[in-house]
C-alpha cells in the first residue's frame, strides 16, 4: 500500500472531521457530528491497518 496516499487520506479525514463535529454539535445536527466522529475514527484506523498490511506476507 502507498503510505503517502494512505496518510494523505487520513489527514483529509481528520481535516473534515473537525468542522463536521463543530457544526453538528453546536447546531444540534447529530448526524453531522456522527459523520465527523466516524471520519476521525477511520483516519486513526489507517496507521494500524497499514502496519498489518505492510507486515502481511502478501504485501512483500
Amino acid at each position, binding site marked *: 500500500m502507498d503510505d503517502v496516499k494512505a*496518510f494523505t487520506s487520513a*489527514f483529509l479525514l*481528520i481535516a473534515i*472531521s*473537525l468542522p463536521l463535529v*463543530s457544526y453538528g*454539535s*453546536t447546531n444540534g445536527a447529530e448526524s453531522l457530528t456522527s459523520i465527523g466522529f466516524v471520519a476521525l475514527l477511520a483516519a486513526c484506523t489507517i*496507521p494500524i491497518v497499514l*502496519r498489518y498490511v505492510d507486515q502481511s506476507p502478501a504485501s512483500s
Partner: protein
Amino acid sequence: MPPIDPLYWAAAAIPLALLMITLVAFRWKAHEAASVGMFAALLVAFGVYEMDLSGLAVASAVGVWEAVAILYIIIPSLIFYHVIDRANGFDALREQVKSFTENELFLVLAAGWVFVSFMQSITGFGTPIVVVAPILLALGVKPVYAVAIPLIGHAWANTFGTLGVAWVTLEGVVDIQDVLLTALSTGLLLWVVNVIAGLTIAYIYGRRTAVRHAIPMVTVISLVHGGGQLLGIYFWEPAFANFFAATLAMLTLAPLSRLPRYAAQFDAVDSRPAMKESVTDMDDKGQPPAVADGGTAAASVDLKGELKADDLMSLKLAALPFAVLAVIAFVTGILDPLSEALETIQIVVPLPGVETGLGVETDALSASDGIAVLNYPGTFLLVSSLVAYAVFRYTGHYATADDVGSKDGFTTTVLRSALPASVAVVGFLVMALVMDYSGQVTVLAQGVATVATAESYGVLSPLIGALGAFMTSSNTASNILFGGLQLETAQSLGTSGSWILAGQTAGGAIGNAISPANVILGTTAVGIVGREGDVLRKVIPWVAGVCAITGVLIVLATTIGFLGVV
C-alpha cells in the same frame, strides 16, 4: 465525579499503559501507538466512565483542535528546517562552529544544553527541539540521540522559560500563600535538574571519561543557569529569570571555549556512543549508514554527498534564520503593546461543553482556547523561513530539487514527514482530551494523592506534574490541570504547599522531555519519523530518575524545614 477506587484507576491507566507498551516495548511507530492509545481511551470513556457518543465526538474534536495548534508548529518547523538544509546551512554551521573549537563534547553541550535552553527561554511549544536537533545532527550526533539530548537539555527551562508562562499560569490558577518562597523552591529543584541534564548529556557523549572532562564546564554553566535563574527570581521577575540566566550562559560559552581544556580536541574518550564516526559517512549507494542504536538521518544528509568547505556559507549567514527567529520571539514576548495587537486575531473552533454520566463537566471552548495566529511560534518560524529563503536565494546558496538530484520537490519532501507526524499528534491529543473530558486524568492523579502520606507525597508530586506534561505536552497545561489538586492535597495532608507546588511545576518541566508531541517534533526534524520509541527508551529512564531525585529532595526539604517551611 467518578469514584476514586482501584477499578476506575486501573481502567484509566489502560490507555497510558497500552501507549507505553506499544511505543517503548514493542517499538511501534508513534502514529500506530497513538491510534491504539486513542481507541483504548475512547473505549474506557464509553464503557467505564459513562461518556455518551456525542460527548466522545466533542472531546475528540477538541483533541483535533489542540493538535492543530501543535501542527501549526510542526509543519512550519519542517519548512524552516528544509529551507536551511537545502542551502546546506547545517553543514555550514557545523564547519564554522568547529573553527571556534574542535572539542566535540563542548559543542554537543553548547548546542544540546546551553543553546536549547536559550531557545526555550524565549520560545516554547517544542520549537527548541526542532531547532537544535538538526544542529546536533550536523555536528555528527546520531539521529536518535540528536533528539534525546535537547529533550533532556531543555527540560529544566520549561517553568520559567518562554518568558515564564508556566509559572505565571500556576500563580493564576492557585492561591499561592508565599509566591517568592514557592518560586525559589522551584528554582532550586530546577537547578538540580539542570546539573543532572548537563552531566547526563556528557555521559551520553562519552560515558564517564566525558563526564570527568565536562565537569568544569557543567559546573560553570549550571552556576550561571541555576544560580542566575534564582537571582533573577529573587531580584528581578520570575517571568524573566530564565531568559536572564540562559542569555548569560550563552555569553559564558565564548570564554569557556578559549580554555585550553575545551579549545583542543578531546581525544581521551574511548567510545563515543552518541556520535557517528563521520558525518559524511556514506555507504556505496550514497546513503547514510544505518547504525544500530541511532538510526539513519534521512532528512539531513541524503543526496548531498561531499561538500567543499569553500561552497559553504559564512557562520553569520548560517545563523541568520535562528537569529531572526530569536529576535521575533523575544520582541513579541517582551513588547506588550505589540503582542496585544498581534493577539487581536484569534481563531477558535466552536465546540460545546460536555457532561458525562458520572457528572464530570467540561466547559465549551472559549476565546482563550483559540490560536493567536500572528503571535505564535508557527508564524515566527514561517517568517524566519521566508527571510532565510530570500537571503539564501539572493546569495546563491539555495539549491533547487534538481540541484540536489532529488526527484521530490520541496512540498513533497515536507509532506512526506509531516503527514505521519500529523496523524500521530492527532491520536495523542484525542487520547489526552478524551481522558481529560471523561475524568480519567483526574482519577489517575487523585488516586495517587489518596494513597499518599504527608511524608511520601513529596515524592509523588513531581510524578503527577510529569504525568500532566506527558498528557498535554505542556508544563503550563500540567499546572492548570493539577496545580489545584496538588495544593489541596498538600493542605489536607498538612505538608508544605510551597514545596509541593514546586514539585508540581518542576515535574511538569521534567515531563516535557517525554511528551509525545515534543518527541515527534524532534524525530520529524531529523528525518526519523517512526523511531519515537527509540528516543523514549533513552529519555524515560532519565525522566524517572530525575523525578525520583526531585521527589526525595522535596521530602528532605519539608522534613528538615529548608527555607523555613516544614
